[in-house]
């Protein structure tokens, strides 16, 4: 079978590779062509995962006002957002932390405060403790208070939950709660770490002895926010400045935005966006 048909059958591998090579060339051709589609504007906003949920809702409403414009909200974290904005991969960035003034990469950026986000201290709904002082919150998260009995609850161990180092929510929490003047108490080493506010909430709602902190917008009926220094975090108490554990959300860019990016920025500071933000538990900056 090989003597007679060698020429034709054995060309199969060659033909296969030739076809493969052509296919790869065609693929790259398609890629190249699709790259210069031009039609259909795209607006990319990237950055903090804390700001992302509310930005997505705002973008959903914005799309109805501006059909034909494609708005993509990406995550990656505040730092990735800054990198993308500087590389022109994203038109706007989102940040849940202050820009570093001593970092030349960040100090030059344009920023616009979008909203104030409250950080709520949450416990299981069946936890009898409903009110804590700031010092008690600090000691709980530092691991100094080990049972709920010490703050007026049941005789059960305290399971502490925090966010990861480098998270905007965590650094805000450490600034607002763990710092007492100049001295900062470190968070307990044995504190459990979750990688999102939603994750913290999910754990707290399943564990009767857990305590954690999360963005006010991430809360729902499955967990309860304790009042800190007598103030419960709500939209009103944040707006009136009574609830003190708040941090800003920013939109950032290389320079002040123009075109579609400017339209989105203006929309985010408008009344429709303010309503969306209120539903998420955020206090919009301009009313």
């Amino acid at each position: 079978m090989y003597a007679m048909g060698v020429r034709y059958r054995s060309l199969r591998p060659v033909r296969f590779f030739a076809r493969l090579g052509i296919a790869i060339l065609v693929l790259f051709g398609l890629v190249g062509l699709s790259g210069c589609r031009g039609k259909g504007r795209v607006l990319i906003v990237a950055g903090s995962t804390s700001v992302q949920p509310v930005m997505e809702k705002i973008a959903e409403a914005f799309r109805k006002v501006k059909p034909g414009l494609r708005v993509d909200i990406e995550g990656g974290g505040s730092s990735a957002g800054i990198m993308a904005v500087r590389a022109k991969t994203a038109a706007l960035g989102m940040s849940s932390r202050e820009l570093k003034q001593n970092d030349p990469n960040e100090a030059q950026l344009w920023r616009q405060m979008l909203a104030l986000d409250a950080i709520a201290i949450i416990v299981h709904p069946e936890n009898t403790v409903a009110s804590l002082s700031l010092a008690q919150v600090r000691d709980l998260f530092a691991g100094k208070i080990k049972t709920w009995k010490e703050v007026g609850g049941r005789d059960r161990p305290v399971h502490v939950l925090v966010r990861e180092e480098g998270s905007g929510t965590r650094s805000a929490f450490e600034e607002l709660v763990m710092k007492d003047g100049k001295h900062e108490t470190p968070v307990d080493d044995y504190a459990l770490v979750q990688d999102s506010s939603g994750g913290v909430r999910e754990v707290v709602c399943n564990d009767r002895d857990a305590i954690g902190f999360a963005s006010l917008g991430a809360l729902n009926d499955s967990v309860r926010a304790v009042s800190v220094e007598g103030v419960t975090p709500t939209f009103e108490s944040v707006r009136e400045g009574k609830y003190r554990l708040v941090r800003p959300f920013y939109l950032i860019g290389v320079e002040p935005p123009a075109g579609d990016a400017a339209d989105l920025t203006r929309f985010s500071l408008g009344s429709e966006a303010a309503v969306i933000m209120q539903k998420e538990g955020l206090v919009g900056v301009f009313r």
Partner: protein
Amino acid sequence: MSSGNVMAADDLRRREEWIRLALLCMAFSSILVLAMIILFVFREGVPQIVRVGIPEFLGGGRWAPTKGVFGIFPMIVGTIQVTLGALVIGVPLSLLSAICLSEFAAPRVRMVMKPLIELLSAIPSVVYGFIGVTVIVPLVRDTLGGSGFSVLSAALMLSVMILPTVTSIAYDALRAVPAAYREGALALGATPWQTVTRVVVPAARSGLVTAVILGMGRAMGETMAVIMVAGNAVVVPTSPLHPCRTLTSNIALEMAYASGGHQKALFATGVVLFVMIFCLNSIATFIARRR
């Protein structure tokens, strides 16, 4: 034989050379890609290790990157414990299942189990993570105490995750052993069990070791699911019920927000991980080759 129907020897040789060249190019480009990734990780990470100092980095017990403290010892211990736990639980189960399916089971059992195992390798790791959080963590919390987020929970979940991988590759390895080996042993009077343990398994050793290595690789590299159940506290776990943080979780948790020295330290963690896997693979291959 007319010369028109058979390719001349020269043409044949030339064509062979082209094929060999094409394959070489493919192999080279894929190796280039792999090397690029390794170089990338090392280029970012090694200077940071040197800057912090190897004993402080590897032996330091405190990880506070925002304050410039980089000690990953607790994470190294966490990774080892979680991976070992997953292997200790998962590998015997996988190997016995693979042996049963390959050697003893009726074809009907095989028809049911094989698709089932393949089905489970199709489930994304985040789903396992969620099942871990909703099933394993409360189970550990209610029966053994603590918060449920622990080395044990992570090891249990990982052992289930590596089951499909290890079992299917081990199964293929056992199947590849020629029937003549089995027939010869049985003809010599060995029981089926003796045939399996003393002839088939040693013959399939290379493939079985691959299966375990790939399973170990999967267990060590698993990030999202482990983050959900291990607790991620930066402590050296002295009991299976303590929370722990693995090297991979460390990278995944903080990479999104890290910049500058913090980010480089995370790459350095990647370097350590790579070296660890390298050593473990070497040991495993050495053991396989010795006997």
